[in-house]
């Protein structure tokens, strides 16, 4: 008994145990202690009783007509707001696509970096070839060879 008393659990831990939340001490230890300690068992039982009383607090039902009227008002509001919004404009899908692309890039950084590197290499190679930069600047000749191998 003395041993059980010396290991009393805090009320907070007992409540968290009851709620299935993370506790300071393992659940098995709490169960073992509560089985021996009348004081902690009493506290636990009071919390259990309180939680059961909470379930008796019923939600007053709203008549279906109230819900229907509320839904009709909300949908009228929805139509009004929707028609006011700029998302009907031609540039909205473009903005959305950019937003989706940006989100994809944040979620998948490695494929995005690989794509950006390949696109940059391709653009460089095209620029050097089209403007014949390898003839004007000899160093770009070596660069274009490397880029062509990479691509």
């Amino acid at each position, binding site marked *: 008994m003395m041993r059980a008393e010396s290991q009393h659990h805090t*009320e*907070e831990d007992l*409540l*968290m145990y009851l*709620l299935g*939340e*993370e506790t300071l001490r393992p659940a098995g230890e709490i169960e073992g202690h509560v089985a021996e300690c009348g004081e902690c068992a009493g506290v636990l039982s*009071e*919390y259990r*009783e*309180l*939680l059961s*009383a*909470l379930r*008796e*607090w019923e*939600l*007053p039902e*709203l008549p279906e007509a*109230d*819900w229907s009227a*509320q*839904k009709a*008002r*909300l*949908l009228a*509001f*929805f*139509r009004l*707001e*929707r028609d006011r*919004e700029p*998302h*009907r404009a031609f540039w909205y899908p473009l903005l959305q696509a950019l937003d989706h692309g940006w989100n994809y890039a944040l*979620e998948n950084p490695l494929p995005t970096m690989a794509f950006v590197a390949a696109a940059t290499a391709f653009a460089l190679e095209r620029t050097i070839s089209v403007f014949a930069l390898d003839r004007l600047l000899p160093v770009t000749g070596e660069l274009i060879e490397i880029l062509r191998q990479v691509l």
Partner: protein
Amino acid sequence: MATSTSDEDLVRSTLDGDEEAFSRLFDRYRVPVYSTSYRILQNPEAARDATQEIFVKLYRSLRTFDPRKSKFSTWLYRLAANHAIDSWRSRRARGETRLPDEPAQAERLLRESIMAEAIQSPYEQVESREKVDEIRRCIEALPELQKKVFVLRYFQELKLDEIAEMEDCSLGTVKTSLFRATQTIRRRLRRFGGIQ
């Protein structure tokens, strides 16, 4: 088939202007939102009005919802709880709430209805009604964060880490708030005789 559409898909369609999607979001969440409002406001008419305002707010702030950060339901319950707390504050300022120990008329009416019911009901039922009534008064008197955590944990069954995330505070703060709220009510019920 239609019911299996995810919340995130409905949100996306709503943002694209799909009225049916918004209507389905309302059907799916009207009761939990009403429940959250009612537990905080404790008045069916006020909770009904708050529910409508919450859905208006939901539509206006839908673009700020980020599915990578939280579930839609968690995000919506936070919106609902915050709005209900604001409404409760306004009602209190107007003297429309039923604060504990105040001999308000609503209180007397409720007691009278309990007494009337007692004539026909078994004793246990009256005891249970009185216990629930005591709990309601205690909840109304709780500090705002405790009240919010209490309602979201016990009536919407959100996990404490979800509440901590949506309230942008530590898990410890949420645990302590919930514990203090529950302990206050337990002690009050014991004094009242609702707990043996």
